Structures are given as structure tokens and as C-alpha cells.
């Protein structure tokens, strides 16, 4: 198991604007977004951990100590070329969300909203950085990585979140889960990444962020691209 404290040197203001629902609005004061991103950097404690398992793509089984069957068709398609999977968990810790709550209670609604968005940016960037690390590791063995795929994407039921968290050993970085399959700290992500022969057939989803294309929320304010 690897625990990686991801250094984030900057949070994307553009992404933060998007998560805050600012869309393409250019008139909103940029310094408020910049300040939220700065505070986000100070409050986030970005950590990642993952485990790699052999994967049987024909039977869709992850060969963990307790083998896990992938029942989602979308995940199976995402992993169609994979010979291994990495199960990833990342979090930025609880401090940022506490500050968001405090800000709302104090009437600093905008700063609260923007900090929450900066937190989303931070956890997404943490996951992206972890994937980069993983890609480097995989490349040394001649493997390429698919994009990350999380419970709740496509037809992958969020009810599978507990087993994904266990496979990733998310507890090692302090992530817990409640009976409704919600992760704590809230700004946490789990995901599966397929590792497939780099020179083989192009792995599904490689070099392409699944992101919005497979999401079932049609009217999300943060949507970047049309629904697939």
C-alpha cells in the first residue's frame, strides 16, 4: 500500500468557477475566486492511496484477497482491455468542509460557496495527480492507464462504494463511509483505473476523461459537455 501526500501548488481557478456554478460569467470578481483557491490550498490536506490487483476481464473479477465481481456493464466496458486494476481513494481531509460550514454560519455565504468549490477542485486535482503517479508506475511495466471511473458514474451503483473503499484501503487515509454510502470527509473520491498493455488495443476511455459524458444528472450546473 502506498500513501501519497499529494503536493498541490495551485488550484485551478477556472475549475473552481465551474464548480461554483459561475459557468462562463466573466463579471464575477476574480479576486474572490483567487482567494478561495488560496484558502483551499491552505485547508486541504491532500492524500491518496491505492492498491493494484490482477483483473480477469473475461469474468470481470478483481483478484483481491476476497475477489470482487464487477457487475456494472459500464465499468466492465471501461476495463475491457485491462489486465490489472488500481483501486484508488483520495481525500483532502475534513478541515476545508468545516471552514465552509463556519462561513455559512457566519453569513459569509459567497466565501463558503467558493471554498466548497475550491475543495472540489482540490480533491479532483489530487485524484488527477495520483493517476499521473500511477501512470508512471504502470509505464515502467509496459502498461497504460485508463481514465478513472468512480461509483455513481454510468450504471455503476453507488451502493458498491463500500467495497471499492475497502479494495482501495481508503481507511489508511482516514476515509469512512456511512450507511447511505457517502464518504467522509465529504471531499473524497474512490475510483477504479484499468491497467492495460500500452501497445495493445486502445483501452476504453484512455486519454479521455469520462467526466460529464457518462453522468446521469442532465441539468447539473457544473456540466462541461453534453450528455453522451
Amino acid at each position, binding site marked *: 500500500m*502506498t*500513501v*501519497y*501526500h499529494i*503536493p498541490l*501548488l495551485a488550484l485551478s481557478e477556472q475549475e473552481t468557477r465551474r464548480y*461554483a*456554478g*459561475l*459557468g462562463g*460569467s466573466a463579471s*464575477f470578481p476574480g479576486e*474572490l475566486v483567487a482567494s478561495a483557491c*488560496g484558502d483551499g*490550498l*491552505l485547508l486541504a490536506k491532500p492524500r491518496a492511496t491505492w492498491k493494484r490487483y490482477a483483473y480477469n476481464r473475461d469474468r470481470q473479477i478483481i483478484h483481491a484477497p476476497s475477489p470482487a465481481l464487477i457487475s456494472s456493464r459500464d465499468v466492465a466496458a471501461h476495463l475491457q482491455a485491462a*489486465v490489472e486494476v488500481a483501486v484508488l481513494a483520495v481525500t483532502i481531509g475534513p478541515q476545508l468542509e468545516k471552514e*465552509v*460550514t463556519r462561513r*455559512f454560519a457566519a*453569513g*459569509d*455565504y*459567497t466565501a*463558503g*460557496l*467558493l471554498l*466548497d468549490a475550491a475543495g472540489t477542485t482540490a480533491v479532483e486535482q489530487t485524484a488527477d495527480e495520483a493517476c499521473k*503517479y500511477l501512470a*508512471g*508506475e504502470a*509505464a*515502467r*511495466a*509496459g*502498461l497504460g492507464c485508463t481514465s478513472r471511473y468512480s461509483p455513481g458514474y454510468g450504471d455503476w*451503483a*453507488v*451502493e458498491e462504494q463500500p467495497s471499492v473503499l475497502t479494495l482501495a484501503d481508503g481507511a489508511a487515509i482516514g476515509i469512512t463511509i*456511512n*450507511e*447511505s*454510502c*457517502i464518504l*467522509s470527509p*465529504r471531499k473524497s473520491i474512490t475510483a477504479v483505473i484499468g491497467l492495460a*498493455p*500500452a*501497445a*495493445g488495443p486502445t483501452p476504453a476511455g484512455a486519454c479521455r476523461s469520462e467526466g460529464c459524458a457518462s453522468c446521469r*444528472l442532465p*441539468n*447539473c*450546473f457544473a456540466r462541461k459537455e453534453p450528455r453522451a
Partner: protein
Amino acid sequence: MIHLFDGAMGTMLHQSGLPTGACPEGWNLTNPAAITSIHRRYVESGADIIETNTFGGSRIKLQNYGLEDQVNEINRAAVRIAKAACGPSTKVAGSVGPTGQLIAPLGELAFEDAYRAFYEQISALAGGGADLIIIETIIDIQEMRAALLAAKAASSLPVICQLSFGADGRTVTGTDPRTAAIVLEAMGADIVGANCSLGPAQLVDIVSALAKACSKPVSVQPNAGMPRLENGQTVFPMGPEELAAWALKLIQAGATYIGGCCGTTPDHIKAVRQALAAAGSSAARTVQTATALTSRSRTVQLGPGSPTVVIGERINPTGRKTLAAEIRNGSFAMVKKEALAQVRAGAAVLDINMGVPGINQPAAMRQAVEELSLLTDVPLAIDTTDPESLEAGLRAFPGRALVNSVSAEPERIASFLPLAKKYGAAVLCLPIAPGGVPATAAERLEVARAIVEAAYLAGLRPQDLLLDPLVLTVAAEAQAALETLETLRLYRRYFGFPTAMGLSNISYGLPRRDIMNAAFLAMALTAGLDAPILNPYDPLIQDVLHSTAALLSHDRNGRRYSETYAAHTAPSPEQDIREGTADILARIKQAVLSGEKEAVPELIQEALKLGHSPLGITEQALTAAMNEIGEAFGQGRCFLPQVMLAAETMRSAFLTLKEALPSLVAQTAGTVILATVKGDIHDLGKNIVAALMENNGFRVIDLGKDVPPEKIVEAAAAEKADCVGLCALMTTTLPQVNITIDALRGAGSPAKIIVGGAVVTEDYAAAAGADAYASNGVEAVKLAKKLAGIKN
């Protein structure tokens, strides 16, 4: 002369029958003949340096196989086996690979644990008779630093430091070849290089960058091309002839030590040997040896010809009680905040001073350096008079730091210079003599000369040195500024090293110190100051830095200056009109619309003074503004953060009104209970709704998140709620919406029920028995007003 390493060991071991999952280094004890035979094949192929079979021979790696107690035996045996295969001129390099873990704070492995493991292994390799040590395939500069420090402490053998770079030209943890070369050469690496991860084609640029950035020989050991997985096996596709052709290109790029990594075999080495014989010697090399500081991932060059480097002075608790208190209680929030803000204000280096009396300063310095190395990518200056704090900071910093500073006092010379040498730091020489502060420039030059000579004796190089001209207070010493400026000129004439100095001492005791500091900065920059230590937030300082950059030709034709200052225009007449003449209610409305939270209380006071009634202000200005912004939001003309800014301004306005007329408190549009349903811990959306409801005149009882139905029923009855708003964000918590609605209805609650949340739909809300579905906060307010019978 070109030196030829051997090729892969792992590839050969598997060909010799090492079972998958077995410990390769274990064979040094159980199957030495197989290892000797591999070495011999490489020697016969023409290798003149062979590497021991100890890549995973550290305690940390061996414990994966339960062999951690045999570090000494395994490593010594490996050297013995290699020696047995050597020809008369073959050298044996003791191979040291990575621990496989990341060093804290990036990972969990303590720097000292890594250091001890490397020290133990390298002691065994050196004790066994290795001719040199090769630390290889390292992906993190901090792990390399631990290993190199251990190698220097455990033996006096030459050390080769090879990192692994990715396709983006950086190591996994972000170090580029130039930065790596600067850090490792300064720390005493004898050869720097790259191996593994990439094929030879991708390594040409990396070798070239290494060769330009340091004066040490460069080594390279590429894989046999980029790996592929074929039938479950990792395959390296490049044949011997092709690798040999690339080897010549790597030599052209500056390498003088060459070999092979994964996938290379004796045949590859033989082909390279033949190509070398045909092609001859190494390429001519141009090395740029400038003074540079680095972080893990960034190099900052200083000195004549380079742009001014601002060293941010703000992380210093002297005279700053809050900062001192935070450092004392172990919270570094303010330190981190100052770091980010200074970098944003243009600091390229951060000075770190942890001089709080009575605390464990070395521990504080270590923590500050660790925290900041995760947060920023600028080099640090370790500012201390305590050798232990200095060592703690230098050890923890994954780059080349600046030591601030070394005076000519014997105890500083004796303790600080060797630490700078050991950790590859640069040194700021401060011309304070044992007898006191020299007054004239000529005296300062002489004291500086003594420090420089001591630094050379301690093994430091010219590019390790910076000079401080010393700044005294002009209010106390009339000649203070002139002597400093003259010292800068003499330094430039006689040494040419970069200069750095703290600026603000000059203005001590004077009013408007910023003016004095800014003027002095401009003068010092022309006299030869390269790196002022200053407060980068100061606007006048910023102005001087921007303008002098253009004047000193670091900002060609003032392009950046223009970009920065072109936007600074006079206030627009439109703004004047708005502020001056418009009707007060229109101005309040405009203030809410544009979210001017700070401006609105004054406007409210003014409106009250002019005789407007609170009700009039509320209806004609505040509510009208919220309605307008709600409408704009509904039409996609404005966005949620703008609505929230307006709500904040509204809140500020209400608070001012309530202060003026407390009776307003009693008037509400109705009572709303809000809750995120049981099992769901998302509360941002619910908080937004609460804020908007409150600022539209509702009394809001926010029950929080994860609220069980019975608590909602109880509160609805107790508070005589007009409306209950329920929120669910997950498919897993949707059923709780139905359960809660049923409970409210079952208890006979007359409250209207509005539901919302990411996964809730209008159809779902209707089926669950809600009175309404709101897709966003603005709509929720509108619905609540409608359901409560309020018009507008």
C-alpha cells in the same frame, strides 16, 4: 573516455530461472554461481563497470522476503561474486535501488529510516570492497538526498546518482534534470545521471540538460526501448544494434558513462562496445555554472544578468505576536498563508525564520520546511543563528536552500559552512567580524573576503556563495546607505558573486518607511543588488520592482510593466454618478445587486436619515433587488455566487435595519424548517437555501444534515412551521424523503413540503407527496413565498 556499464540484471536472472516472486538478492547467498555467470557474460561483452546484484538489497526491500537481518551478508556476498567475474580493469559498482516508498511528507517513510537503511546497505557494499556506489532508478529527489548523504557518511567511494525521469521530462515527484543536477552536484555526487523508465530516444534531452547544468560526468542507462506487455510478459522491443546507435547520440548529448537498464542483455552491451570502438571519444561540453537555488521542482538563478530575485521576508516571528504564538502552539496556518501570499506577490525565494524564544526551534524549522515544500515550489532560505535549526531545515528541504547567513564569527564559520557543504546549500556571507560591525565598505570587503576564503576551505565553490553588503539605519548613521551601496559596487568589482540583503533596516525609526525602503531598493539595484530580502506586499516596493525590471533590461521594452500598469486607470465617471447623484433607494438596490456588502450599511443609515421607512427600504430596495437577481438567475443571466453575494449584502442591510429598529425582528414572512434527510451528510445546497430564505424575510430553523424524520416532525410542530424544506443528494438517501414526508403527514403537520437536491426530480417529488419541487435555492424561495401566500 567513455565508460561502459553492464546491462540488466533482473532480465538475466529471470532467464536463468529465478522464480517469479523470489528475492533476486537472495540468490547472492543461495545461487552465487548464476550471478557470477551473468556478470562474466557482461564482462566478456565489453563492460568495464559491472553492478552488484543488490538493487533491492536494503533492509526495507529485503523485509518483503523476510531477509532484513541479512543485509550485510547479502551485500558483501554480492560484491564478492562480482569481483570473481571481473577482468583486470573491471570496476564493481555497488547497486542501491529505491526503497519503493515515498519519503515523508510526500509518503509515510521517515527520512531518517530511509537514511539508516541506505547507510546500512552502503556500509556493507563498501566493506565488501566495491569500487564505487551507484544509487539508481530513484523517482524522488528527497530519497536520492537520503541515499547520497548515507553514501557520503558510510564510505569515501565515488557515488553515481541516477534518477528515473518520466515522459514529461520530470521524476514522478516533479524534479527536472537541471534541478536534479544542481542539487546533486552541490551535495557531492561524483557522477549524475538517468536510468530506466524511458528508452534511449526519450533520454537524449534529459542527458543534455544534465550535462549543461553541472560539471560532473553524466551517466545514462536506458531501457531497451519503451516496454510493452505481450502475452502477460513485459517486453522491451529494442534490439542491440538500435540501442548502440542511440548510445552514440547519448554520448553526443554529453554522457560519458553508458550502459543498459531493463531489457538490455550482454548482446546489447557488446553492440554498444563495438559502436564505441568505431566512433571514438566523448563530445565537447558547455556547462553553465551560475549560482542557483532550487526547490524540488524549480530552479531560481541569481546574479548579474539574471532578473532581480525577491526573497520574501514575512515568515519571521520577530515583532509579530500572532505569528509567534502560532509557531509556538504548532499551528502553521499563518506561516502557510504568508508563504502563498508572498509567492503570489512575486517572491521567488522564501526566507524562513523560526526564532521564537523557548520553543524547540529545530523541530519548528523542520515542520515549517516540510509544510512549505508541499505547498509551494519556491526555494527556501533557512534564516537562523542556531546550527541545529539550520541542519534540521537543510535536511528536510528537498532542494538546494540558502543559508541565511554566515558571519566571520568563528563559531558560525565552524558550524555553518560544513553544514552548507554537506547539504549542498548556498551561503549568504554577512560581513560581521568578531569585533563588531565594520563601518566602511572597504572594511566590509575585507571581512567578506575572510568568509569566502573559509568557505573555500570548507569545500564550497564560487557558485555556492552570495554576499550581503550589510544595511544599517540611516536615522542613526548618516552614511549608512552610501556605505551599503559602495559595498555592493566593491563586491561586484572584486567577487562578482550574487548579492542579497535585508532592505528595511535602512528606514528603522523613520516615518513612512515604505517610501525610504522603495527609494533605497531602486538605488541598491543599480549598485549591484541581485536579491533583496523584503516585504513583497508593499505597493511601493512592487512599483519599484516592476519599473526597475524594465530599466535594468530584464523586462524587455517594458512589456510586463505595460501589462501591469495599463489597466490602472482613473475611476470611471459612471461610478461617480452612481455614488453621487442617484436616488438612495436605487443605490441600495444597486449595492445589493452588485454585492457591495461593506458599502450597504452606510447607505441604509443614509436612507433612514432621509426619512425612508424600514418597510419602504425593504420593499423598494432590498426585496426588489433580490427579486431582480432571482429573475436574472432563473434566466441564466447571473450565477449562484452572485446570488450569494447579493444575499450577503442583503443580510448586512437587514442587520443594519434591525439595529436601528429592533421591532423589525418580530416580522417574518413565515417559518421554514430545513433539513438534509437521514443518512445524507451533504449540506452545502441546504445551507444556500437557508441563506436565501433568511434574507427573504423567513424565520429559518436549520436542523442540519443527517436528520431523522421524527426530529423534523417534532420541530415542525414545535416551531409551527409554515414550510418544511427537505434535501437529499444521493440515490441511496432518496427513500428518506418519502419516509420523512409520510411521517409529517402522519403526524398531521399542516406545513407545506418543498423538496430538492441533486438527484430529486419533479416527478419523484410529486410521487413522494411533496407540495413542491425546487431545482435550486432561488426557486425554493419563490415557492415558499407562494405557498405561504406572499406576493412578489
